[in-house]
């Protein structure tokens, strides 16, 4: 640790929604837990350089995560999910403004977002879902604000919980089968009991059947 810097206080009704990487910097997105309002704090050199409203979205829409879904180099966008319907919506963010909202369709609520990672290729932000009943993983490839593919990542026992997903910085993606294996192992490797190895033995067979999980697109 080489130092610390205070950014000041923000009311506790403003909760951290996530961190949005764009270019070489990371900004913080806050959400008002009473109104659903979104606020982005630009951070550079350990200081808040700007605070910009992104508008308000109903509280039935929850933030699923951030990533570069638009495929515009250096941009960070936001994925939201409707807590009642399971619908996904991409909010394309550029220069601290939402420039478009694109529905991605709905997935059953038994499938929860496990994280976003460059699984289909470097620089991509693909979405990994996990079934809360079976422990199965699915990846949805995303580019240009659209689904471009989907595949099964296999199944790991529910006693193994996802602690995080991190790409290999040397390769920048997880596109090969070996790297996919690393992804599953990484996700399973933070669990507290045995059983992941057995799950991995059948985890990596391609499966396109999950495309049927998508249903009609729904708007906010």
């Amino acid at each position, binding site marked *: *640790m080489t130092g610390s810097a205070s*950014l000041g206080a923000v009311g*506790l009704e403003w909760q951290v929604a996530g*961190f949005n990487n764009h270019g*070489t910097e*990371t900004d*913080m997105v806050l959400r008002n837990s009473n109104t659903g309002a979104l606020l982005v704090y630009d951070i*550079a050199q*350990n200081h808040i350089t700007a605070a910009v409203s992104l508008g308000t979205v109903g509280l039935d829409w929850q933030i699923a995560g951030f990533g570069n879904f638009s495929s515009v180099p250096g941009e960070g966008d936001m994925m939201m999910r409707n807590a009642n319907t399971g619908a996904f919506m991409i909010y394309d963010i550029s220069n601290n403004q939402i420039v478009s909202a694109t529905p991605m369709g709905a997935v059953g609520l038994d499938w929860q977002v496990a994280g976003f990672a460059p699984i289909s290729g470097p620089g991509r932000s693909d979405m990994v879902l996990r079934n809360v009943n079976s422990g199965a993983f699915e990846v949805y490839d995303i580019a240009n604000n659209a689904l471009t593919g989907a595949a099964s990542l296999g199944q790991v026992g529910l006693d193994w919980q996802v602690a995080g997903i991190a790409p290999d910085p040397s390769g920048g993606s997880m596109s090969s089968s070996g790297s996919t294996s690393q992804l599953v192992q*990484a996700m399973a490797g933070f669990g507290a009991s045995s059983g992941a190895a057995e799950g991995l033995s059948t985890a990596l067979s391609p499966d396109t059947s999950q495309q049927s999980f998508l249903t009609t697109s729904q708007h906010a």
Partner: protein
Amino acid sequence: MLEGAHSSVLPFTLEICNISNNNLTGTALIGPVGYDQQVVGFGNFSSSGETDMMLRASYNGSFTIVDIRTIR
């Protein structure tokens, strides 16, 4: 990043675990953090191209960036 109860005075000690080729290759202590501070995320807040840590105080909502460099 691990958070453990290593100190009776300041109960949480943060530790970095370096991972390479699926193996833990090293650990480094960052130091103690009070109960009232929660880790809310990581990012390049210092504009140095490296990863820093954001803490938030649970009692008043204040944010603190911890600039992390040169820990081996």
